[in-house]
């Protein structure tokens, strides 16, 4: 047992630190007076967030494989190892986690018992970071399950309304669905070991490269993974824990749930589904495409009829996550890159929406749309922010919601055309439910308490400002992000093509030589000649104007 440290670019264990800092913060919080817990938590979140930025800067954009790998074998006989890595697929999810947690801490406050509240948030951050950074299947499973605990306590302890029911539903539903995944993980490792005859391993890269598990076994193991991921995403029809959990959760819980935790499901499909079981994924694709597209239309339709603003946003997540599922099962570069991008952008937009809804609730003590109205008059700044975030969520080009959604649909159109045609109707519905909600909440005459609602406070504005900047930046210039996602997606696609039975659908259209203006000029000249000939044949003579002769 040796200490094997493969630091790619950093000379210190960067990835373990990203995970460890929030734990340390949680431990320090134990001994911190309640008054200062917020600052300790914020410090921890900021430190981890800053490190994630450092990682982003140091990340080699040209490399498609894992970077900053840290690996230590714990019990080789059992194949247990402590192994982390990051690539273009997980990179921005880690950074998103690093951004959303500090923002959440500034933008929201607990109703009581700040100490435990902040501890749970730090533990959540640990779990999220760990899940995105784990290279080892067992380790991933550990973190995947761990996040449930603090979230359960956050909803149950600091939530609203029927919070205990919501927390229990959330916990039982997601835990029951992921129980089988552990069986799947162990089966896969054992079967792979029997096959290769080498020592057992849970390392996802090694397993993906070497395992020969196929046929029914592979399908069954994939399904055990898929069930856990489907509930987490959530995919229609296993989504009903989400509206309860989101609605009753405190604002911080909703922001993190939507921004980070739902992504564990779609990330799982990419990293552990497609990577390990390309054939099973392909065989079952029609089912998942159907469920994903159904979620888009269904989530939007149900969102339209919600009376509770927060519930409406929750259902909009069902629709948005459906797009990501569609992109993953498109199995091509545009679809996969679009999905990764959309995971990040959905976190930004929906996170911001939940923060805004939380502010409204804090001020008006209601989320019932019918009791709100005309808020644009009393809170013009909040209305302006809401408008921007809403347009981003609707997928307006130029804002962050668009590039991912567009790439998903473009990729989907190449490989799953008719599913995509239906998915595009979701674009119409998204405008319907959000604009209608906006109209009822912000437009119209303001009466009673609505007329006196307080506008956004300076600290609140500062908290949400980074998200607003990202909404514009990621819409106008997503290229640096896509540049870093692309090599990893290419590696994944290559791997899938090598590993699959050979008839894996290559739906990438042929590369075309760009013609630029020369093509236009050629075409114009050709057309001009044709024009002239036709004119002459019609005997109407040449009637070239003076401007045409200029040269």
């Amino acid at each position, binding site marked *: 047992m040796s200490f094997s440290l493969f630091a790619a670019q950093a000379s210190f264990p960067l990835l373990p630190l990203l995970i460890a800092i929030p734990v340390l913060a949680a431990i320090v919080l134990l001994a911190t007076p309640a008054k200062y817990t917020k600052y300790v938590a914020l410090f921890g979140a900021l430190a981890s967030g800053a490190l994630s930025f450092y990682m982003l800067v140091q990340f080699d954009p040209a490399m498609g494989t894992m970077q900053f790998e840290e690996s230590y074998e714990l019990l080789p006989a059992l194949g247990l190892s402590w192994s982390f890595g990051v690539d273009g697929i997980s990179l921005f999810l880690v950074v998103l986690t690093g951004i959303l947690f500090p923002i959440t801490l500034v933008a929201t406050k607990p109703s009581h018992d700040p100490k435990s509240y902040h501890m749970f948030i730090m533990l959540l951050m640990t779990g999220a970071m760990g899940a995105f950074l784990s290279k080892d299947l067992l380790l991933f499973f550990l973190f995947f399950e761990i996040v449930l605990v603090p979230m359960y306590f956050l909803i149950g302890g600091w939530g609203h309304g029927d919070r205990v029911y919501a927390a229990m539903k959330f916990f039982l539903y997601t835990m029951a669905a992921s129980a089988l995944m552990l069986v799947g993980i162990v089966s896969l490792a054992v079967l792979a070991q029997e096959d290769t005859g080498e020592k057992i391993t849970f390392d996802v890269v090694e397993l993906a490269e070497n395992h020969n598990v196929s046929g029914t076994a592979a399908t069954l193991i994939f399904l055990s993974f898929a069930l856990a991921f489907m509930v987490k995403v959530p995919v229609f029809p296993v989504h009903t824990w989400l509206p309860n959990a989101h609605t009753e959760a405190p604002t911080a819980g909703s922001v993190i749930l939507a921004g980070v935790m739902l992504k564990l499901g779609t990330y799982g499909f990419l990293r552990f589904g497609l990577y390990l079981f390309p054939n099973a994924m392909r065989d079952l694709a029609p089912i998942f495409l159907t469920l994903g597209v159904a979620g888009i239309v269904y989530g939007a339709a149900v969102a339209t009829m919600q009376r509770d603003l927060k519930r409406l946003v929750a259902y909009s997540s069902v629709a948005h996550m459906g797009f990501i599922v569609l992109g993953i099962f498109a199995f091509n570069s545009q679809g996969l890159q679009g999905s990764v991008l959309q995971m990040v952008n959905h976190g930004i937009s929906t996170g911001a929406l939940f923060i805004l809804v939380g502010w409204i609730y804090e001020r008006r003590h209601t989320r019932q749309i019918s009791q709100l109205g005309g808020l644009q008059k009393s809170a013009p700044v909040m209305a302006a922010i809401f408008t921007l975030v809403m347009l981003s969520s609707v997928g307006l080009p130029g804002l962050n919601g668009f590039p991912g959604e567009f790439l998903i649909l473009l990729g989907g159109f190449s490989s799953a055309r008719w599913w995509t045609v239906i998915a595009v109707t979701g674009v119409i519905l998204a405008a319907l439910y959000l604009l209608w909600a906006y109209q009822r909440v912000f437009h119209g005459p303001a009466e009673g308490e609505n007329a006196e609602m307080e506008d956004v406070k300076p600290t609140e504005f500062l908290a949400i400002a980074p998200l607003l900047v990202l909404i514009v930046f990621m819409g106008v210039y997503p290229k640096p992000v896509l540049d870093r996602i692309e090599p990893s997606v290419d590696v994944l696609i290559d791997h899938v093509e090598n590993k699959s039975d050979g008839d894996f659908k290559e739906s990438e259209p*042929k590369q075309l030589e760009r013609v630029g203006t020369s093509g236009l000029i050629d075409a114009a000249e050709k057309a001009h000649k044709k024009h002239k000939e*036709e004119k002459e044949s019609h005997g109407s003579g040449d009637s070239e104007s003076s401007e045409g002769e200029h040269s």
Partner: protein
Amino acid sequence: MLELVWLIPAFPLLGFILLTAFGSKLGEPMAGWLATIASLGSFISTVLVFFALKDLPAQERFHVESLFTWIKAGSFSVDMGFLADPLSITMCLFITGVGTLIHLYSIGYMHGDKNFSKFFVYLNLFVFSMLLLVLGDNLLLTFLGWEGVGACSYLLISFWFTDEANASAGKKAFVTNRVGDFGFMLATFLVFTSFSSINYADIVAGSSELSAGTATAIVLLFLLAASGKSAQLPLFVWLPDAMAGPTPVSALIHAATMVTSGVFLLTRLNPILAQADVWATGTIAWVGAITALVAATAAVAQNDIKKVLAYSTVSQLGYLFLAVGVGGYVAALFHMITHAFFKALLFLGSGSVIHGMHDEQDMRKMGGLKAFMPITGFTFILGWLAIAGVPPFSGFWSKDEILAYAWNADGVGGKGLWVIGLLTALLTAFYMTRQVILTFFGRTRFYDATPQELAHAHSAKMAASPGISENDTTEFPLVVEQQYVTALSEAPETDEVDEYLPASYRDRQEYVPHESPWTMTAPLVILAALSVTAGVINLPFSKDLHFLGHWLEPSLFANEAHLELSAATKWILAIVAIAIACTALAAAGAVYLRGKYPPEKIERKILADAWRIDSSYAAFFGGPGRMLFVVLTWFDKTVIDGGVRGVAKVSSLFGSGLRVTQSGYIRHYALGISVGSLLVAVWFVTRLFQ
């Protein structure tokens, strides 16, 4: 100079950014002036680019200026790239030109509004988006502009948001346009799978290899997109409602520029249209023709001064679709330009009337305003003559060109398109004459007591006269129905109830309709001059006078239809058109000025309701459509979630036997997991240091 094409959108973008940051500090009127200067800078840049382009040989008038790669994934890549060619620069010229005039006008019109600077924020953002739409060198950048103008339209229609009607109209515009976007996105995907690129240059170069079937599908999907943005059947319903926005917005966005985007898009894609089946382009022509006729009939029966112009815009846009469908691209662009001038003029004129009339929009309460607002009246009359198709005003020339192409296009429905076009011309001249007479001629009806006021006064009097029973209507006939108003109609008798008339009536007597300030009238004068003279850019008498045609030729790649008409045919068509216009003018004069025929026989309810198309949609989506959503929501709650709860119930029944070890309290499970994972973690860590 050509490389400076990016300056064209940069000016309004800079204006938008500055106004967002400092607009409320600048306040009125500086914020308005800043926005106007930004738009003017854009216009000047366009003119410079125009001359630079003109200096090139005709077939080399293409310049692509790429700023950076916008979205790239796999083989898909699009740039923030601007294409300067005759088509895009023509669009830019009138967008920035008319745009600047409307900015200037708005300084006067929005005077005193508490969101003065915000209005100009949106206006500059709109101009920026519109310029991206026409300058984009690929479909996606055009889509960015396309959606950007849609968002600005939404924000500006619901600008006065405290009124529910305005808010609804804004939402309706956006959502209806999204139906069109469905077509735009699918068409873009189809273009990408067919051409492996969505750059216009690649589309032009590769179009000859496109199969007719694919081309037809692409054209029909883009037609759906275009009929959303350009308010054609079946998606035109948002535009009449969009008049809820401030009048400069109606002039700029909902008449002169944004609503022409659909026509621009189809013109830009002329190489694909050329490959499509004839019935696909025929569909474009027929959609345009039918929309033109339907909207013109609706315009005849509107009483709101802006609603007349709204339906008129839908109808005129129909002409443009008709022209594009029969391959008359130059005619479409020609009419688009003249329409931008005269329709912007008419809208701004109506805005000036509304402004001078204490926010009154009902033409039945106007009349004789020429005396109160000489400049507005005079310029409005010039705009009327231009749209009515009276020579030598600009509208005559451009409309005549479209009618000639319609006559020429036997392939897609014989002379039917021409007949509908002519019928629409007749109606256009009629309803515009009606509008001018009701607004500017005849007796001033502004001071009359309204039916509501009279009814109020009668009941007040009745309450005050104890001797008369409430049912006794013989003594005080209640005049609740608004009578049909012509320029000749008498003022309602008020002597008997004079002292009971409400305060609104008395207040109005103190008010005198007034002419607008110079910032509003100067744009009117300039637009009026353009409306009169713009015909010279493409006169039919000699090929040498086809300036616009020659200028646009490189962008059309010989896909323009050939007009195979003899000079005699053209003369006859023109004379028929003039005769039709004169007949309509005379008829409207007879009805509204001389009272020869009762107007209520013409202004039917079904016309006022625009053939009940909008209300049918509302009934469907409010009824069965909403029902479907309600059922889905019920299904989610009862079936899907109910199933889950059912499973939970059953398992808890089974589980109750095992209660000894399983407490059933989640917090115990959660605690267990926490402790367990903590132990695992501790174990992991200890292994680290062995």
